[in-house]
């Protein structure tokens, strides 16, 4: 299961999550959603610390964050 | 209950309390200030809420809020204040929130004066604010009816989920008469399933009070829904349950001339009819007690038997248009009015009748 889950149908491609990710591991995907938006995507999930800055920044509440439990 | 001597404005206040109204929001204006003053004192005695708002605009929106939360709620004002309330009344009608609005009419336009008038008839009966809507308009002619129609007004408002307007004037508001007050009735703020904050176990989804329908098809559907409701109301007042409530007829059966007036004017017209009869003039009187829906039926019927109509108003002629529409050209409809705060005397009106009946 992923740490970073996006509901692409909600994403409007505003890019705030991409701009704010401290590890710079978010980028626009290279496919279009049915709404005609290039959604945000994670480029290297192994680096994700589940800090949720992207999810908290998302105006559409489109991102869910999970963390590995130790 | 024994009869008590009360001012018209105060009778409305006490009747509201007896009807279970516990919420009043208003703003001072002459000649209705006795009403908020009465309720400011009275409502705390029954754990009610009285708020003097910062404006009529705020007051009517407090009514919108309280009504949407299920309250039996009212506001009152006089002509210029009612103009300010029109925005809110339009929203309240659109969102189908019940409430009672009292207009103790004074002279207009503009600031006009504080003397009694009937020049808000059009505003009251045509909706008043923007959009396709109607308010039920009740027109008392005595302190007793100020009380009775206040109670009836709350009942109509709840039954039809519609604002009800009590259209009174400065004379009725200020004059004192003995009044029989009814027994108090209970009202449960949690009795309306559609209301915001409704707590019944049958509540399955959240409630919304709104007048916005951005989709044009949805708004059209909503407006036709309102229209159908108004048709139901019209039928009930013209031929159904409230047929007798809607109109008073006085000596009309053999009348050749029908005098028409509402509110305080009808009291004067009754005297005029008496004097006419003494002088051999077959006069009768029709008094619409409900101004919307207008009691057209009685005029259609009397247009067959009477030979002419004389409408008397404390305005330059507003209700006369509804009488003409009802009579539909079958008989002549004349008008006599005083405006600017003057109440016509029986003598003046009698002179007008004379001119019509004896045109030499």
């Amino acid at each position: 299961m992923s740490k970073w889950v996006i509901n692409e149908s909600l994403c409007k491609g505003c890019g705030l999550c991409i701009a704010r990710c401290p590890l710079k591991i978010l980028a626009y995907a290279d496919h279009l959603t049915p709404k005609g938006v290039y959604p945000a995507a994670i480029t290297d999930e192994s680096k994700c610390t589940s800090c949720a800055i992207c999810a908290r920044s998302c105006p559409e509440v489109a991102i869910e964050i999970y963390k590995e439990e130790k | 209950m024994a009869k008590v001597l009360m001012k018209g404005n105060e009778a409305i206040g006490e009747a509201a309390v007896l009807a279970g109204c516990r919420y009043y929001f208003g703003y001072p204006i002459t000649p209705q200030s006795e009403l908020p003053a009465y309720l400011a004192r009275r409502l705390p005695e029954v754990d009610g809420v009285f708020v003097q708002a910062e404006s009529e605009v705020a007051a009517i929106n407090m009514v919108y809020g309280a009504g949407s939360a299920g309250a039996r709620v009212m506001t009152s004002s006089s002509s210029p204040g009612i103009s300010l309330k029109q925005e809110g009344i339009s929203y309240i009608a659109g969102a189908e929130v019940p409430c009672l609005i009292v207009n103790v009419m004074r002279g207009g336009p503009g600031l006009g004066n504080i003397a009694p008038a009937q020049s808000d008839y059009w505003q009251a009966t045509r909706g008043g604010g923007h959009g396709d809507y109607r308010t039920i308009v009740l027109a008392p002619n005595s302190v007793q009816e100020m009380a009775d129609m206040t109670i009836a007004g709350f009942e109509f408002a709840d039954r039809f989920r519609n604002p009800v307007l009590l259209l009174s004037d400065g004379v009725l508001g200020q004059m004192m008469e003995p009044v029989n007050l009814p027994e108090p009735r209970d009202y449960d703020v949690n009795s309306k399933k559609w209301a915001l904050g409704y707590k019944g176990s049958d509540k399955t989804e959240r409630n919304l009070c709104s007048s916005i329908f951005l989709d044009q098809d949805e708004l059209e559907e909503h407006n036709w829904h309102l229209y159908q409701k108004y048709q139901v109301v019209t039928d009930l007042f013209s031929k159904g349950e409230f047929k007798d409530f809607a109109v008073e007829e006085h000596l009309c059966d053999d009348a050749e001339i029908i005098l028409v007036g509402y509110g305080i004017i009808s009291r004067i017209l009754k005297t005029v009819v008496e004097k006419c009869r003494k002088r051999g003039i077959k006069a009768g009187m029709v008094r619409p007690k409900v101004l919307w829906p207008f009691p057209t039926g009685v005029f259609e019927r009397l247009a067959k038997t009477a030979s002419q109509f004389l409408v008397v108003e404390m305005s330059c002629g507003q209700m006369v248009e509804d009488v003409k529409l009802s009579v539909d050209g079958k008989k002549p409809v004349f008008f006599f009015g005083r405006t600017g705060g003057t109440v016509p005397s029986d003598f003046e009106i009698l002179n007008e009748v004379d001119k019509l009946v004896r045109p030499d």
Partner: protein
Amino acid sequence: MTMKKVFSRPASLSKTPFHYCPGCDHGVIHRLVAEAIDELEVADRTIGVAPVGCSVFAYDYFNFDFNQAPHGRAPAVATGIKRTRPESIVFTYQGDGDLAAIGTAEIIHAANRGENMTVVFVNNAIYGMTGGQMAPTSLIGMKTQTSPYGRDAATAGHPIHMSEMIATLESPVYVTRVTINNVANLMKAKKAILNAFKLQKEGKGFAFVEVVAICPTNWGKKPADAHKWLTENMLPVFPLGTFKDTHGVEKAA
């Protein structure tokens, strides 16, 4: 390996997608309101009042009862609701046109009466829904549809400071200005909104949270650039901070 949910949609926020423009701050502010309601466990007795403006459809985005008020009148409508149902948690959500222009009288007097309600005021210095006209909070020199040469103080006055004005009144118990231009500030805004609802739940009185926000579309800027512009231009005019905290809710936290 098991996965623990760190962040997801709050229960009080409905599943309806927002109609707001890409990058608009309303979505985040809506979410912060929903999170506060959920944290205080008052969703079953919350009644919102939606304004006129971009957030006119706010009622679609929450799972509790709502009234849609006339332009600027939300605090009066909320007064009627709260007085009728004092056990409810009542809030208004208003923009700068709604609250700081046409509804100035209603907000000042609801605050002055100390109505036990919460007000969330979103100030982005422009009218959004009508297409980008000058607001009472527009900055001097700011070009809008109705100030095409820039807002001129000589004819249009200066940006109005609602929080500072409301803080001069005796009745309000909490008046604060926050922003969500970065995640640190966003977390402070979250706390402020929670405080404002908590005070109402405790029956303490009128609480007012101003959120300085962006309007990327009508400012003509990309969302991230708009936040930068907000930081550089709006915050000097609308300084962040708490202007009134009668019950010391911020210290207690």
